[in-house]
């Protein structure tokens, strides 16, 4: 062959990429050669956002060295983004945690201890807190990045073993409002449709999402659809900020932050008053409701309610580029296209009225019948790989048990207790603390021991200083399981090193109800352990400390299992076979064997293995597609809404008034502050100190300022700008450009440096329904403090 190693790898790379788009290259590699790049490929999922891209990790000499997409996968169709590079960077990183670290007091240095000592301490501290202060003095705070098996076993030990529902997780901060919206509008959590709708949609309504940067692989699919049908497909982007997503839109609706509820109601006004609605669909499947008591009202009442939202009135509320004509055009495109798909993320969810905003998007789909048919869906994109699968489905929030069961319903608690073989009444009837309440309880000294897994609330909570103060209390024992030091390990007593993705086995459930298995491909660094092993061993010690055999019962089925594969498999078997049986997220067909055989996992409901092997349910509630829609059918209609939350089996159109943000700008704090994520926030490049490079590389957080505001305040690109709210301040370099609307500033929040940690400035007001904080909007003031300054990266060590 005579090819150098590098030339061979380049050809492999080129041929792989060319095969995606059916292009021929003037060379080939014969079969033996094309298998020579790595020792083996192990198929799993990416864990760096919620899309659920499938990829093969290339393993050579026991290390992950290469990546390639899986073209047969129905999530990413083979494409990956640059976030995937983090895998090999993390796996061999010299700063990985590899030894348990302990200190009795938080002002002491950590010392290395053995796993036996660490687990004994964790057990003694939790048992001690329960004995002295009661069961609700302990808590678990988890993550949408934890595997389903991990979330499930943690919450099992907390609820069944320690008799508390103080089980929460960071998905509360990102998708709780989407959950609330789906439950109250459709009667069941999670989207009805799938990514597969993208290739069939004719109108995309993207609101509160910069998917070009945050979900680039899904954005690619959307753009392919648009490019292949430039005249047929319309893209509407609704966002107060100009972003790479808005730049490709046929229409960008830019408005004052927080006023989009008025836009959505005004679109409904147009749909009703210009008779763009689907009368038969509404009559067959929907009812109108309002208020806390969910009172049913009629069409006339809804029509009257919308009189406050004529396009003229809404345009006056919204400002920006919103005109009555724009609202009318958007409503027409939405209603009249053969199939409309809405997509949104945190711009809608992280709001004081996040659930209402979700409801108002769903309203448009119900009114126009833009649901359930191919290409039409109201589709919430998720930020984390397993917020849906592990946390929403696996019982990872304070008010829900595995299998979409509510804690407060006795019958459902009893089902779980029976499945676990523990006494009836063991799971307490009262939901635990939601996230903000949990950290407020720490501030108030009510929580004496908390286990924080795979997340860093010291950085990610809004108004972070307030909660960091509580977390630094000496009377709150904090255990953190993680792979690296973080702002939260800085406040911990006990830090336990864990295995990373592909160093252990487990399932992630992505945005589109799809569960996918990632098997262990390489060993974790010596000393790091998978969480499922840690929890099992901790629970056995807890049982001894508290002399409580029921705690042991919680992990009895898992004793002695090998931790890399057999243990998570046993946990998944219990969860899927016993806890999802006859629930809307029925995963009984999605056994490890089936998941391993699929290029891309299984969409629930998937009650049998035979059905799971087809890929599962592409569209919920549709007879002939969703087996539960057939099984649960109550009449001959093609759509059957069997979701657990709506006893009337109807879709609910909500009368939700426009409400502004919790904190609007005023004379003292005249700017809107919004925050968000960036495509490469997962890693920072090394410091350059030179401003042009700095802006190009985005290694540090910066504040985006509209040019008109910058001019008025004398702020030039790269100047250091103070961003101050009633809660705290940051000093960051300025990026001056037509991104945010005038009167608004925007800060990415990936930076751990104290000066640039924007959650020291954000507000901890939260949605009364979903309890999700309003990260997206608060009031601030800004001022120039100096010219450009070289910055230093901040990494916790």
């Amino acid at each position, binding site marked *: 062959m005579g090819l150098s190693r590098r030339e061979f790898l380049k050809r492999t790379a*080129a041929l792989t990429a*060319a095969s995606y788009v059916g292009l021929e290259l003037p060379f080939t590699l014969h079969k033996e050669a094309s298998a020579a790049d790595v020792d083996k490929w192990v198929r799993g999922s990416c864990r760096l956002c919620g899309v659920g891209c499938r990829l093969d990790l290339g393993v050579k000499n026991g290390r992950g060295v*290469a*990546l390639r997409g899986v073209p047969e996968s129905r999530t990413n169709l083979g494409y990956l983004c640059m976030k995937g590079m983090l895998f090999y960077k993390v796996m061999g990183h010299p700063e990985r945690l590899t030894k348990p670290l302990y200190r009795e007091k938080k002002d002491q240095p950590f010392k290395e201890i053995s796993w036996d000592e660490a687990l004994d301490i964790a057990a003694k501290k939790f048992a001690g807190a329960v004995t002295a202060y009661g069961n609700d003095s302990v808590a678990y705070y988890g993550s949408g990045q934890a595997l389903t098996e991990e979330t499930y076993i943690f919450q099992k030990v907390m609820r069944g073993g320690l008799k508390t529902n103080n089980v929460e997780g960071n998905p509360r901060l990102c998708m709780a409002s989407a959950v609330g919206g789906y439950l109250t509008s459709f009667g069941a959590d999670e989207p009805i449709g799938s990514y597969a709708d993208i290739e069939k949609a004719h109108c995309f309504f993207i609101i509160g999402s910069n998917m*070009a940067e945050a979900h680039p*692989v899904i954005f690619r699919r959307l753009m392919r659809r648009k*490019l292949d049908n430039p005249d047929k497909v319309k893209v509407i982007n609704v966002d107060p900020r100009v972003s790479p997503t808005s730049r490709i839109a046929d229409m960008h609706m830019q408005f004052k932050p927080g006023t989009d509820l008025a836009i959505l109601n005004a679109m409904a006004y147009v749909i009703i008053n210009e008779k763009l609605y689907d009368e038969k669909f509404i009559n067959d499947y929907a009812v109108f409701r309002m208020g806390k008591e969910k009172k049913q009202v009629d069409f006339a009442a809804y029509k009257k309610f919308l009189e406050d939202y004529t396009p003229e009135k809404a345009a006056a509320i919204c400002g920006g580029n919103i005109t009555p004509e724009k609202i009318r055009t958007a409503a027409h495109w939405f209603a009249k296209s053969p199939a409309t798909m809405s997509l949104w993320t945190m711009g809608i969810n992280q709001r004081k009225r996040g659930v209402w905003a979700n409801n108002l998007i769903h309203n448009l789909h119900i009114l126009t019948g833009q649901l359930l048919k191919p290409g039409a869906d109201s589709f919430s994109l998720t930020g984390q790989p397993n917020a849906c699968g592990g946390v929403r489905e696996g019982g990872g929030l304070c008010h829900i048990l595995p299998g979409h069961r509510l804690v407060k319903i006795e019958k459902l608690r009893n089902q779980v207790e029976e499945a676990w073989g523990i006494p009836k009444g063991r799971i307490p009837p009262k939901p635990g603390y939601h996230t903000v309440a949990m950290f407020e309880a720490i501030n108030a000294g009510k929580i004496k021991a908390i286990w924080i897994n795979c997340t860093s609330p010291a*950085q990610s909570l809004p108004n972070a200083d307030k909660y960091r103060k509580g977390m630094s209390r000496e009377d709150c024992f904090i255990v953190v399981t993680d792979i690296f030091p973080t702002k939260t390990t800085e406040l911990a007593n006990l830090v336990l090193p864990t295995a990373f993705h592909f160093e252990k086995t487990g399932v992630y459930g992505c945005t589109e109800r799809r569960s996918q298995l990632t098997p262990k491909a390489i060993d974790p660094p010596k000393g790091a352990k998978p969480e499922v092993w840690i929890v099992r061993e901790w629970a056995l010690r807890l049982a001894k400390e508290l002399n409580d055999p029921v705690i042991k019962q919680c992990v009895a089925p898992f004793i002695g299992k090998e931790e890399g594969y057999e243990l998570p498999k046993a946990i998944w078997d219990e969860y899927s076979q016993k806890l999802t049986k006859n629930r809307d997220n029925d995963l009984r067909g999605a056994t490890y064997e089936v998941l391993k055989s699929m290029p891309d996992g299984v969409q629930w409901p998937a009650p049998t293995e035979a059905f799971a092997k087809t890929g599962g349910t592409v569209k919920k509630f549709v007879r002939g597609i969703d087996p539960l829609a057939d099984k649960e059918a109550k009449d001959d209609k093609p759509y059957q809404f069997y979701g657990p939350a709506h006893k009337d089996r109807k879709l609910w159109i909500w009368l939700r008034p426009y409400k502004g943000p919790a904190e609007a700008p005023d004379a003292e704090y005249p700017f809107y502050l919004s925050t968000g994520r960036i495509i490469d926030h997962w890693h920072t490049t090394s410091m350059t100190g030179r401003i042009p490079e700095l802006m190009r590389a985005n290694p540090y957080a910066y504040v985006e300022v509209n040019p008109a505001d910058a001019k008025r305040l004398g702020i030039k690109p790269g100047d250091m700008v103070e961003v101050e709210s009633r809660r705290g301040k940051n000093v960051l370099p300025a990026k001056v450009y037509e991104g945010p609307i005038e009167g608004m500033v925007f800060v990415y929040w*990936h930076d751990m440096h104290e000066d640039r940690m924007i959650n020291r400035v954000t507000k901890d007001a939260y949605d009364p329904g979903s309890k999700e904080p309003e990260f997206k909007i608060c009031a601030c003031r800004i001022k120039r403090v100096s010219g450009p300054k070289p910055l230093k990266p901040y990494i916790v060590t």
Partner: protein
Amino acid sequence: MPIGGFVVQTEPAATEKVKKELACLQGVEVYASDEKGNIVIVIESNSSDDMEEIVKKITSMEGVFTTGLAYLNAEDEVEKIEKGEYIPNISLGHNKPH
């Protein structure tokens, strides 16, 4: 020296212009393209950080929508990480709520 194979998704009217711009970038080799606006490229860079920079530059070009990764091999960089010759800077993904 990581090596990556990508499909650059462009506006069909801009494909030829983008191809010319890509050919000027160091470490980027254009292999093929089609009428739908897909361009197959291979990037060879000094480090993953550099590759990310190049990808960012490509994605921000006029007429480019996405830069999709199909294949990446970083075997020699992994070796360097292991030997302690290269320490990637990582701000942790899970320091964020979503």
